[in-house]
């Protein structure tokens, strides 16, 4: 294989777009926003040539609802946005979860709150990704730290969305999407591409929300005679609105539990020098690259630092985190917000101090910036 054919020099927006194409995206609806627009523009040039449909809607609310409709019409559907647009999608993130529509949402995090700084980076959407919509539901969020991972994890995001019928969020950040890196593009069979389960029974026997053993119901497609009703109200296996405790309880539990029982296809993290780490850092996204630099320089000086980098942020591999923290005296969570991932780490690790190192700079922090904040614990 020629070296050039499958090697790209892409920023994480373009890499994620390529990942979506590899995964088979064929419907995209979006609204312009910095810094996600160039992902949209990239796909706008490519998708029509591959038979896909891509449109700009009047706002992000239309975009998210259009991709949910498209998903039920059989499409692999996605959108990309940044914090303000993500906020607008709030209600229908819950709708997607409730009607179990496989969709992928890319959130290029920028500085917030509100309009914040449109051209500056941040990691303030961690909790937003988890709890954006009202009510209780399960959702998956993945966080790449390089363009290669943006590519790989977008494919994984589609796979999880299709297999578990959940919305999957890819949490990227302004730095990643404005940094070009070497990316190796893949094709099946090197990379697996999954599709949703289809009904195995004729329309008259089909119950659209009756789960299989894996808690995921097979999904019919509009226009194929199943006459399926997609209900945003609490519904039974038929998709009919009912106000019964047992139906409500089973549904709400299943919307979360289907992720838990299938966590082996979701959980993902990377550990660096954690075996004997006495100081364990926890960081994700582009920030983790700066922290990794700190850890490596410390190791070169004989200091036992390590890094736990969650890739699946929601859910996080908490068992792996506990194990990585076994030998640590202190855990330091470094993130570009005022304490969000920290809350999850602090919840999990009960027997040793967990410190928050909030990095509130507008650009990618240098290792020195981070060390300055952490010095008091080192």
């Amino acid at each position, binding site marked *: 294989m020629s070296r050039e054919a499958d090697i790209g020099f892409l920023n994480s927006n373009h890499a994620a777009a390529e990942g979506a194409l590899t995964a088979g995206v064929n419907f995209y609806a979006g609204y312009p926003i910095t810094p996600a627009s160039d992902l949209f523009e990239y796909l706008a040039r490519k998708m029509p040539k591959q038979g896909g449909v891509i449109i700009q809607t009047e706002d992000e*609310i239309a975009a998210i609802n259009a991709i949910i*409709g498209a998903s039920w*019409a059989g*499409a692999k559907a996605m959108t990309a946005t940044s914090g303000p647009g993500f906020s607008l999608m709030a209600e229908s993130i819950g709708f997607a979860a409730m009607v179990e529509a496989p969709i992928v949402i890319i959130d290029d995090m920028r500085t917030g709150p509100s309009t914040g700084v449109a051209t500056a980076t941040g990691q303030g959407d961690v909790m937003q990704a988890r709890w954006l919509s009202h009510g209780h539901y399960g959702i998956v969020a993945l966080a790449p730290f390089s363009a290669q991972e943006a590519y790989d994890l977008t494919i994984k995001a589609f796979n999880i969305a299709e297999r578990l019928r959940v919305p999957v969020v890819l949490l990227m950040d302004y730095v990643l999407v404005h940094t070009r890196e070497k990316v190796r593009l893949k094709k099946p069979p090197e990379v697996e591409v999954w599709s949703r389960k289809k009904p195995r029974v004729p329309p008259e026997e089909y119950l659209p929300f009756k789960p299989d053993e894996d808690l995921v119901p097979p999904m019919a497609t509009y226009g194929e005679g199943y006459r399926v009703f997609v209900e945003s109200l609490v519904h039974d296996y038929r998709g009919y609105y009912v106000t019964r405790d047992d139906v409500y309880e089973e549904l709400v539990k299943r919307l979360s539990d289907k992720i838990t029982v299938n966590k082996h296809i979701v959980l993902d993290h990377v550990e660096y020098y954690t075996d004997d780490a006495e100081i364990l850092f926890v960081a994700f996204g582009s920030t983790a690259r700066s922290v990794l630099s700190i850890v490596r320089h410390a190791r070169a000086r004989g200091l036992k630092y390590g890094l736990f980098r969650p890739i699946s942020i929601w859910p996080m591999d908490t068992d792996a985190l506990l194990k990585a923290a076994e030998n640590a005296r202190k855990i330091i969570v470094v993130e570009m917000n005022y304490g969000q991932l920290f809350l999850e780490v602090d919840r999990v690790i009960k027997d040793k101090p967990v410190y928050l190192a909030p990095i509130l700079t507008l650009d990618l922090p240098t290792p020195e910036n981070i060390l300055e904040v952490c010095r008091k614990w080192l």
Partner: protein
Amino acid sequence: MAVAKRPIIHPVDKYLRTERLPHVWCPGCGIGITLHAFMRAVKELEDEGRIDSSKILFVSGIGCTGRAAGYVNFDGAHTPHGRAIPYAMGAKLARPDLIPVVFSGDGDLVGIGGNHFIHAARRNMDVLVILVNNMIYALTGGQVAPTTPKGTYTTTTPFGNPDRPINAVKIAAAAGANYIARWAVTHPELLKNSIKKALPMEGFRLIEVVSICPEIFGRHIGFRAPIELYRRLQKVVKIRGKISPFEATYDWEKEIILGEFQVRNEPGYTRVLMEAFKHG
């Protein structure tokens, strides 16, 4: 095996999930008349071999009218408030053989969902929008709607509605819809004929149906029985042939003009988009 929950006793029963009946709508409500007109139009079209009802995508938003999607036996969805149009658009563009129908209320379509309404009309998106206008937020108990007549008592405007009502026909016309008509539940046969004509067309089609809500609107403003409100509506609606949509007055005190105001055959958005992509 297809076993109906009860024997088919009505010609349009096959378009209903009859096991879900009775419905939630109050006695005298105009939604049933409208839904019946829709199903009769579908039945005639299907009997004539002009439509395959398994391709109909019946989408509603939130509200009394929004409940319709749950009763009909088509592919469909009951979306969040105001979002039926973009949902239907996404499905249609992803699967162009679908026949999307958005069946929802005035608050849903031209209140909270107003922006989608305008832009779908602007794009000439392929969707038949049946806007059931009962002039009130009924499901939530009688709050003011964008269509409520000025001066009217509602629970959130106890001293009279200070807002001017919206005229959905004019908005759709300004945005460029292919087909625009307004009917009322006082004229179900004309409504059925209009639906039958508009359903097979492409592009954005609006049929506004001026309805009655005797329980939450009528009773609050002094009409004690449904028939009184119905007669009041009968008095104010006037059918006009061949007038511009911009002359289609919507005024509860003077006149509400019914009729077919615009019939065009400009290519629908799906076809325009696919053409554009072909040259990509």
